[in-house]
């Protein structure tokens, strides 16, 4: 443990190493951090040697085992996908929600349901702050939840919004979180800093999102601006990798962009991420895969239930009729596991390269039992 100010430690370990995911956990937690565009900046150095930021940052050394023990039933844990009580394929029953959503609309439907039922008082969702740049916002009106529907391709500092809302006179918040954001929220649970712990008690529900990588905002903007008028964008999507492209719908038509061009725009920190399926949440949602092909599966979501809370929510939503289910093809679980393990291996290789030492994976303990299992599976 060094005696440097925590801001300096975080700068060295995370920001200067290019690991920062812009999850926003340090923003609004401490005024020494500022978010600007999709960057996090240290405004001033503090004089605490063990600050809250270090505890919650998903890219400081993290005790994954401790998190799993607190959050999950050990019987449910899988090496590749985290805790898995069940894998489902779902979508929102309400077609108007599906119309606004990215794929199946499951996230919007579940959040809307949770708000209506009073399971959560407010939801922290990513809205668009500037063109292509999202920011977290609190929603208390279930009807307005669809306004935040749709994937974001640049990371939203949603945890910053959570930090702000947690100060209000609210009992429970629900958060729709990317894997890194979910990790930050999970770390709050086990924090010994009382202020953080108090805030974590307000986490009523974490709805994780599957995530491969995100884009750097400026680079994405510049690339798209060459090909179209940014203000005319109505929808964006990245179909399964075999399509090798990103689709942008605009008022003036449809533009297809090759993944090759977009590779340069990927946010570098995403290359060091282990978590494809947002393992540290109650429920995780991604886009589904069906044998009939993308045209059908694009309207459905994969859904992983991880906790009792998540299980209960799904059952209640099912019973209330706001979620519809589809059979899950047998091979889907294995395919997901393979994809997830692949991301872990790539991340491990890149981290070892960055640290310069094969056994040193920077923020992740290389001797974590589950990780080891994943890495040895061919």
């Amino acid at each position, binding site marked *: 443990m060094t005696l440097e100010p925590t801001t300096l430690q975080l700068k060295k370990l995370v920001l200067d190493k290019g690991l920062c995911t812009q999850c926003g956990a340090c923003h609004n937690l401490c005024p020494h951090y500022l978010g600007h565009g999709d960057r996090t900046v240290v405004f*001033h150095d503090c*004089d605490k040697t063990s*600050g809250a930021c270090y505890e919650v940052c998903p890219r400081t050394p993290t005790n994954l085992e401790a998190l799993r023990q607190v959050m999950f039933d050990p019987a449910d844990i899988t090496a590749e996908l985290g805790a898995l009580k069940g894998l489902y394929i779902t979508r929102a029953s309400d077609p108007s929600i599906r119309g606004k959503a990215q794929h199946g609309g499951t996230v919007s439907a579940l959040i809307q349901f949770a708000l209506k039922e009073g399971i959560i008082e407010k939801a922290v969702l990513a809205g668009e702050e500037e063109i292509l740049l999202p920011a977290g916002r609190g929603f208390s009106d279930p009807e307005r939840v669809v306004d935040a529907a749709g994937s974001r391709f640049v990371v939203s500092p949603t945890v910053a919004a959570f930090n702000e809302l947690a100060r209000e006179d609210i009992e429970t918040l629900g958060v729709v979180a990317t894997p890194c954001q979910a990790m930050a929220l999970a770390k709050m649970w086990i924090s010994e800093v009382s202020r953080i712990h108090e805030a974590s008690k307000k986490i009523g529900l974490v709805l994780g999102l599957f995530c491969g990588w995100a884009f750097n905002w400026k680079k994405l903007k510049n690339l798209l601006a060459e090909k179209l008028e940014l203000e005319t964008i109505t929808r964006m999507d990245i179909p399964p990798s075999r399509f090798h492209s990103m689709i942008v719908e605009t008022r003036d038509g449809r533009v297809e962009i090759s993944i090759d061009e977009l590779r340069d725009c990927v946010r570098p920190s995403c290359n060091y991420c282990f978590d494809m399926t947002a393992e540290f949440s109650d429920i995780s949602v991604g886009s589904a895969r069906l044998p009939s092909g993308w045209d059908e599966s694009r309207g459905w979501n994969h859904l992983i239930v991880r906790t009792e809370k998540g299980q209960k929510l799904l059952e209640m939503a099912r019973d209330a009729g706001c979620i519809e289910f589809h059979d899950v093809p047998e091979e889907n679980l294995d395919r997901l596991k393979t994809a997830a393990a692949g991301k872990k291996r790539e991340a491990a290789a890149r981290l070892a390269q960055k640290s310069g030492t094969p056994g040193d994976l920077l923020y992740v303990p290389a001797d974590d039992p589950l990780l080891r299992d994943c890495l040895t599976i061919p």
Partner: protein
Amino acid sequence: MNRLSEDNTGKTLLLMGNEAIARGVIESGASVCAGYPGNPSSDIIDALVKESSELGIHVEWFVNEKVALEVAASAAMVGLRGFAAMKQNGLNVASDFLLNLNLSGIRGGLVLAVCDDPSGISSTNEQDSRLFARMGELPLLEPSDFQEAKDMVKEAFDLSETLGLPVIVHSVTRLSHARGNVSLGSIRKSDKTPYFDRSKPFINVPAPARAHLRLKEKMVRCLEIIEKSPFNSYTGPERPELLIITAGAGRFYCEEAIHNLAAENRVGLLNVASTFPLPRDLILKRLALASTVLFVEEGGPFLEEGVKEIYADHVSDLGVLKLLGKSTGELPSTGELNPDLIIDLLSQQLGIQRKKRPGEYQQGLSRAASNLVPARDLAFCAGCPHRATYWAIKKALALDGRDGFVCGDIGCYGMGSGPAGWSQMDTMQAMGSGTGVASGMGLLDSFGLKQPVIAVCGDSTFYHAAIPALINARQHESSFLLLILDNSATAMTGFQPHPGLGKTATGKTAPAVGLEDLCRAIGCPVETVDPYDIGKTTQSILGNLESPGVKVLVLKQTCALVRAKQGLPPSKVKVDQKKCIGDSCGCSRFCTRVFKCPGLIWDAGTGTARIDEAMCTGCGVCVQICPERAIVSEEA
């Protein structure tokens, strides 16, 4: 209250050296007095301003020292008496004019009071301005106490008129800002009618060398007068064990040392009225009766080297002398003098034990002091707009993320270079140089300089010297952001007026030369924001760092001390003691540890922040920075 214009010959007043100089100007019947604020000289013109209407003299602050000297010289060109006062750096600014005026001469009297600042206590540099007298071959008088500060100004005017040359009267902080007994003389009123005699123009061309020859002749005459000056003095035995030659404020310390060691019978003290030209014959006479000579003077070894020149010319007559001073290392060659230096040196030279404090007392006290006495850092006043400005600059540069830097300038905001402004100023030299240097930096992107450049400049500084640099920047399309910190004041030196304020030194209304108008006329995009609005200011700075070319952002908010004087009722700000979560606030006392306003203090007892009502001016900036929003502003 005693007034400097009191017509009370013979009365003794306690006057500041600068006030004594001002009184000397009044007793000399000067008509025009000019200057630019700069410590330790500002009080001279400040004092004259107060008396100007009473005495019918024209006293004014000018935009810079060159113009001030030109104005004072204009009076002398038409037969009136003119006076200019400035600090050391001011003489640098005025020097081009002075080094022409010495050759073209004047008709009436012109006295230039130059106040040096040894150690640079209130300056950006340390210099010995007396070297200008040598360079310009002008008479340089050195008053050595408060009475002389007054009387030698009168002598200077007479000398100036006799020779047709400007005369420099030299002072230093310890004379200018110290106070002592001064017996008043009678006030003289000018009886001359100004007239420009076209048959005697003041021009050096086409043959400056000829004009130079005329100057040399004048200085020969000057030496004759200086040799006989009543302000040269010698005290002590005819053949002293140690001869001290001194001038100016140095004399105080010599007399103090001689008194302290009771060495009156062993030490001879020669005090010279002028260090250029030195009274050669007088000096030779005293050197002939001495074997060891010590030179004591503030500044560099100016007197010392001058005497050594004289000695070198007569070494065969004088034989070997032991010479002690700054150039040989017995006295430090940098920094201010103090009595202890001279006492210790004399004690060593004469073998006299100096009375010392008991060792135990000394040690115990030093220990207690180091344990108990905290350092007092400089801070901006409570409510100072500069604090808010530097906060916004720091934030904007952090958000921009390209390692931007700040070229700075002189004024209260100069403290931005230190902890008071979070070290947000990276260069500082002369008045207006921030803009000049920034305009150079803004041209270096073709060499690969990618860092954004900011210049900060105060309103008074802007009028003084930044305008030519800004014109230049526009013409050469240099890329930087000029922040003009317009607090409607020349605050650091005592709130003298500047051209943007629309009033004269005596408080009468005058046409205002608008700052934003000037910038627009130069062709720069100009925006104005209130630095108290941190969010907007930060955004404005940030936005302007992206675009090419020179842009001006005026940060306009009145100086907190000016507001206090205007009696504007402050809005009340307070810390909601329930919302302030003290040390549990993860920010580690962001408000008090980082923001550091004297109006917002840490109450160790309650473990929370608190407003000090005696200091808070209600500017409301802290309201915007508290992460818990615990600081609130109540409308008064």
